[in-house]
């Protein structure tokens, strides 16, 4: 590729053709402010609508200032990024954006992590001339089970639209209206709940402002904790421990498992358990289902559906119920680890400690916003009492810990409680893309071949490519595995399944780019994909450190089957640990 030489702020730089001025400046260590622009390099995700004009610079030979996030470098260009003229233009743009923006930072849930607030600070905005006369657009606040939309705070960067349409291919939201009333909304400006939204939360995780945020359930959890009649049980998902530390200034990828456990105990939870335990349980059920379907399939039974699809991601479940309802018998019927945990906690464990399920409150800490919706699904409750009462995100937990003045960085590591806190390395890797299917392979291999698995690290299943595939040798049987993360990638694999072209025996799907470590409830990555990669490394490190790394070797899982469930796939297991799916596609009703 040709190389282009240009000068930015009196420094020369060589860049490959096609590079934007913004990126060339970055090479030189020059930080041009951006607002609408966002890039997740390793995931091929980029948003550059050139809408906000915060990133402008002076470019030789051009009369107008150029948006550097979308203007390509040209040979011999002379660029000036921070001249008085540029600063003045940026200020004007910012004042304009802020004149139509609510000023309730004090109680805004993005306060402190808001990119708009940070930009106002960076550009030294202390006053918005004429703001008291400017018209302010108003939209109703829309609260769904997982997400709050407060579009008065929208700055039309359209990052959410890009995530929902290009990355996830859900298309629940789009830019609508024009001029002053322009905003991003579902069709007909319905509430999100009535759209095709999957609650993956990817729009929330890229929104620079408080326009899109999660529903906050910390107050309800607090109420349960102060109620002496309630036994409050908490479970933490694998991806949380790899990201929580970021909210307290620790480097991305710092594992805080022991400190998180200590903090949860300090917050007053009666039992601190681990969703990883339920992940091991998921592998027992899903792995058994896989082997059952596979052996029937190999015997020529055409009713055995192959490939089997994982079902532990509720964003993904919502997606196929909406877009692939014709395939609703293809995914595994195993519930997600969150729901398996709740079902066991409120039966087996409640019996063990001799309390009624109604006196137990199960809280889950999740990297995920779809889990908030999932735990409210009707089929996951008994007599109106949900198996999981509240699901709070990693971000909400961090805020809760701060509220309680807990100095998490200096806490002594503590262990999870027994028995629902014991897990293997297989449970941990559920948090990263490829992890669920790797965990399933570890168990399925041994159950299928009766032999000991020599190599536990299926590195061929790991990585960040959106769609991956590998063939695993099951002692002579080549097992074809497909992996997709991000719903747009999942759609590609699903289209093949629908048309009968798919060669896979098993497919893992995670709705979020990177898997749950990149979930919609995680600390904000602010467009830095290194953060997500560091979390993945942390997950695999935790796996390696575990003495047991195969789900079926978890002694507490073995005990749970002996004492309570019988064996994987038993009637009781089916009743408690499996579910079914619904056709949620909108119907066109034809009037006669």
């Amino acid at each position, binding site marked *: 590729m040709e190389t282009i030489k240009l000068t930015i702020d009196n420094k020369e730089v060589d860049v490959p053709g096609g590079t934007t001025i913004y990126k060339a400046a970055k090479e030189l260590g020059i930080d041009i402010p951006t607002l609408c622009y966002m890039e997740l390099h390793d995931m091929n995700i980029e948003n550059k609508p050139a809408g906000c004009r915060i990133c402008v610079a002076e470019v030789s030979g051009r009369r107008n200032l150029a948006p550097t996030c979308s203007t390509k470098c040209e040979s011999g260009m002379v660029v000036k990024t921070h001249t008085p003229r540029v600063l003045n233009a940026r200020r004007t743009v910012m004042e304009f954006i802020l004149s139509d923006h609510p000023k309730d930072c004090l109680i805004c849930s993005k306060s402190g992590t808001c990119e708009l607030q940070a930009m106002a600070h960076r550009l030294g905005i202390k006053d918005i001339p004429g703001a008291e006369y400017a018209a302010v657009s108003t939209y109703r606040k829309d609260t769904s089970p997982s997400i709050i939309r407060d579009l008065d705070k929208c700055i039309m960067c359209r990052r959410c639209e890009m995530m929902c349409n290009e990355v996830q291919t859900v298309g629940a939201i789009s830019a609508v*209206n024009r001029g002053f009333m322009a905003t991003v909304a579902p069709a007909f400006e319905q509430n999100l709940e009535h*759209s*095709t939204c999957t609650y993956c939360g990817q729009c929330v995780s890229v929104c620079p402002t408080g326009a899109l945020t999660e529903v906050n359930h910390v107050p309800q959890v607090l109420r349960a904790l102060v109620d002496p009649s309630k036994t409050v049980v908490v479970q933490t998902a694998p991806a949380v421990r790899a990201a929580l530390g970021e909210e307290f200034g620790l480097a991305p990828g710092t594992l805080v498992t022991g400190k998180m456990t200590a903090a949860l105990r300090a917050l007053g939870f009666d039992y601190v358990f681990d969703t990883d335990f339920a992940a091991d349980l998921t592998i027992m059920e899903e792995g058994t289902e896989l082997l059952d379907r596979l052996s029937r399939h190999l015997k020529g039974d055409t009713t055995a559906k192959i490939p089997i699809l994982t079902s532990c991601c509720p964003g993904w479940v919502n997606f196929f119920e909406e877009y692939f309802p014709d395939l609703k018998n293809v995914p595994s019927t195993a519930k997600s680890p969150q729901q398996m945990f709740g079902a066991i906690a409120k039966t087996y464990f409640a019996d063990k400690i001799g309390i009624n399920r109604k006196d137990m409150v199960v809280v889950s800490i999740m990297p995920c916003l779809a889990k908030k919706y999932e735990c409210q699904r009707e089929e996951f409750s008994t007599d109106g009492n949900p198996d999981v009462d509240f699901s709070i995100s990693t971000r909400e937990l961090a805020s809760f810990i701060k509220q309680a003045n807990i100095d998490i960085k200096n806490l002594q590591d503590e262990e999870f409680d027994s028995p629902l806190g014991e897990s293997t390395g297989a449970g941990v890797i559920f948090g990263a893309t490829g992890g669920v299917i790797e965990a399933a392979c570890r168990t399925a291999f041994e159950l299928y071949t009766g032999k000991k698995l020599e190599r536990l690290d299926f590195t061929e299943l790991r990585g960040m490519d959106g769609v991956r595939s590998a063939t695993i040798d099951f002692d002579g049987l080549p097992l074809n595995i497909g992996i997709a993360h991000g719903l747009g990638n999942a759609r590609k694999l699903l289209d093949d399944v629908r048309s009968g072209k798919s060669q896979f025996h098993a497919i893992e799907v995670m709705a979020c780019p990177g898997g749950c470590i990149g979930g919609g409830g995680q600390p904000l990555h602010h467009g830095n994909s290194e953060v997500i990669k560091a979390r993945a490394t942390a997950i695999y490190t935790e796996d390696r450190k575990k003495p047991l790394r195969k789900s079926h070797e978890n002694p507490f899982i073995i005990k749970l089957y002996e004492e309570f469930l019988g064996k994987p796939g038993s009637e009781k297991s089916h009743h408690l640990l499996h579910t079914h799916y619904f056709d949620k596609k909108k119907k066109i009703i034809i009037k006669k």
Partner: protein
Amino acid sequence: MSHIKIELRKEDVDFIKGVCATFNNDPQELINVLHTCQEHFGYLPAEIQEVVSDGLNMPVAKIYGVVTFYSFFTMTPKGKHPISICLGTACYVRGAEKVLDEFKKELGIQVGESTKDSKFSLSSLRCVGACGLAPVVLVGDKTYGRVAPDDVKNILKEYE
């Protein structure tokens, strides 16, 4: 999770699907598809957009985005006598907004709506090129110039 229940007659659904097919079910042709549908039905309610979404295999949110972006698309049926008030600069300065308010009051509808009996509908326009006559009101093909709020009742009477 979509809860919209769509009710259309079979021939309407067939018509819309047919239009989509004429344009090769290509999402790039959305604007043309919408134009053809609006010409046929007079407006583009949610139901029609849903069927177009199906036909072109694209999110209905995007379609709604396009319908609300371009002012020549409308989601409400036009009345028998569509009333348009020019809100271009000249008309605006000469009090077009007061005229518009009077129409709203008299008809009991907002811009973009039509009366219950479908007799009148109300919309606003950008400069129609008759600034000398500002403020300008159009009812169907007929143009009224130098309209004052007091004239509104009389104009409506002509269509009783």
